[in-house]
């Protein structure tokens, strides 16, 4: 796993701590808010949101720590419930 000390993934938020102590967090509400601002069909809006979250992880933790290419993020929001999936690979 590229340079993560911890990850907390719930249906409400994601919190990450990189090996050097830098942190990242995003909430379901923030994801929903970004999703609402996107254009296109549902699939396009979701893809844009996933790209946005992954880019924010890279920005917060550093490209040399947790780059987009080693991060898998997915989510679903149904009837006010949420499911978030975050996977990291070692490259």
């Amino acid at each position, binding site marked *: 796993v*590229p*340079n993560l000390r*911890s990850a907390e993934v719930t249906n409400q938020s994601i919190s990450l701590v990189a090996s050097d102590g830098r942190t990242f967090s995003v909430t379901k509400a923030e994801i929903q808010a970004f999703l609402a601002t996107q254009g296109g069909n549902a699939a396009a809006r979701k893809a844009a949101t996933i790209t946005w979250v992954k880019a924010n992880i890279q920005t917060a933790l550093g*490209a040399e720590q947790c780059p987009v290419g080693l991060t898998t993020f997915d989510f679903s929001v149904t009837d006010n419930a949420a499911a978030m999936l975050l996977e990291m690979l070692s490259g």
Partner: protein
Amino acid sequence: MATILITGFEAGDATEAVGSTGTFSVQGTTKRTGQYALQCNPASSTAGNLSLGAWAATGATANIARTLETFYTFYVRFAAIPSGTTEFVVCGTASASPVARCRITSGGAVTLAGATTSATVATLVSGTWYRFDMRVTSNSTCGLAIDGGTEQTCTGNNLNQDRLYLGRTVTSEAFALDVCFDDVLINTTGFPGAGEVRRLDPDGNGNYTGWASGTGVTFAEVDDDVPGHDSDTTYVKALDTGDNTGRTFSLESSASASVAGTITAVSIYGVVRSESITGTSVVGLRARNGSTDIDTSGQEWGTVYLGKGLILDTDPNGGGAWTSGGLDTLEAGVFAGTLAQAQRCTKVAAMVWCAGTGVQDVSMNTIASTTALNNMTITPGAVAVGMNTISPATVLNNLSVAYNVSMDTIASALQLHSMAVTPGSVAVGLNSIAAATSVNDMAIASVQSIVLDVIASTTALHELTVSPGAVTIELNAIAATTSVNNLTVTPGTVAVVMETIASVAALHELTITPGAVEIALNYIDPVTALYELTIPLPAASIGLETIAATTTLYEPTVLYVVDMGTVDPATTLYDFEVTPGAVNIDLDTILADGTLYAFHINAGPGVHFTDMVVGQPQVSILNGQALLSWLVMQPVLSAQSLHPVLDADVDQAELDVVNEH
């Protein structure tokens, strides 16, 4: 034994893992050995795991990619038994399809399940570490034994064993899971038995000194433990051309890393990246021992810091089984076969799987004030007790320890009562003891070392007793108004070093009993008082150097070597008595106005007076000094030789006694 992976999560992060899903943390709160362990605590209906694989020949993390029998040993501790049946370990494919997986019921019953499910292997309780020995053969017999108990078997699914998933891989189980893992070894030939992983950190430069273009040129660039690594804050760096020398570092000793028992295997660990994606470099890890290098094949790593590993089942130096001595000469580092762009290495270490002692570490950091630690007993073995930053008003009562105790930065107003350290290779370090600390009744048995550095003023050391053995006591930088009462050192090769004793410090009743005792009291400042300093039997040596003005030495009685260099004016030596034996008295440069009262020398013919042979050209006793009651009991000196120095202040009755000889 062909080891595939060693990890105790001592990297402090997840860089030894192949992947992760959901909630996990490498943390230092709940651990079995070392500094860190893995915690996976996914909420209900969520996944949370870290997946472990192998170190490829290149040094990169890789899938295990086996179907043949593979042996997985790891330790497991549940913070709480889950409220429903859930998986907590999976051996499976890269997409987490299980060959076999461990499951636990709400009653704590553990089974191993693949194509079939085993009988209950054991019933676990929360808060206890258990050793799991799990052997997995794809499409054949798999087995699990816990803490060496009876193995229960099942049939594994016909899938690849790519990874060992620690934690939960599925989201379908509606129960929270909170489980910790530590000390993992995967290999192809058999279980290693009980063991633990210790990390050896760099402590110096090694044989190869390239990669000198980073943030510095010492091991400090790669000894990160923040925890984890510090990314680009500190690193060693190879330039993009011509820097193929490589860089290796010596490692801390096996003893300091608490390596104990049989050493099964060692893993060199490093965190490396390229500075750019232009071109292709070949960079790998290097182990060196003796004159033998073992390298990974290396590859282009890309611009992301990633963990690399190199497994060493045997010592490169000779190829035999690992020993602690072999570990102590091991170097770890990096090399560059081909360089197309600059390379950075931010962390290097060695991970060691050893049998250990079965006694876990105790670490108490940042103990807050008003904490009371009562009746803490640590029994013998490779035990390390670290108590750092103990706050004021903490009380440590009846601390009994058999191994290594380090107490750093003890705040003022602390009380250490009845600390007993029993025999063995024990080191007690009490550093930076703040003012008003009381150390009472500290008794140290043989073959130990006590270092009390930077004892602040108003500290009181009562009844410090050191019994026989090769004991060293160092009391350095004792500040003003410190009181050391009843310091008693009994026979044996005992050395007492008290350096830089500040003014108005009081040392009461310092008694050194027979044996090869050496006392060095250096740089005793003005108005220091040494009461009743008694050294009764041969082979004792006292060095009192640079005794400042107005220092008072009361009633020192000595039998062997007395060396007082540069006794300043106004120093007063009362009742200084030297009794028979091979005595050498050296009083260098006693300045004017120094007063020696009742200086009795009862020594025999073996007495030597250096720089104080009265009446000889090398006498350094200056004019104006008063030698009162100078008594020599043996015919070493003649009255005639005394006359040039003694003046009217000399007590005539005492001189008459001298003249009788």
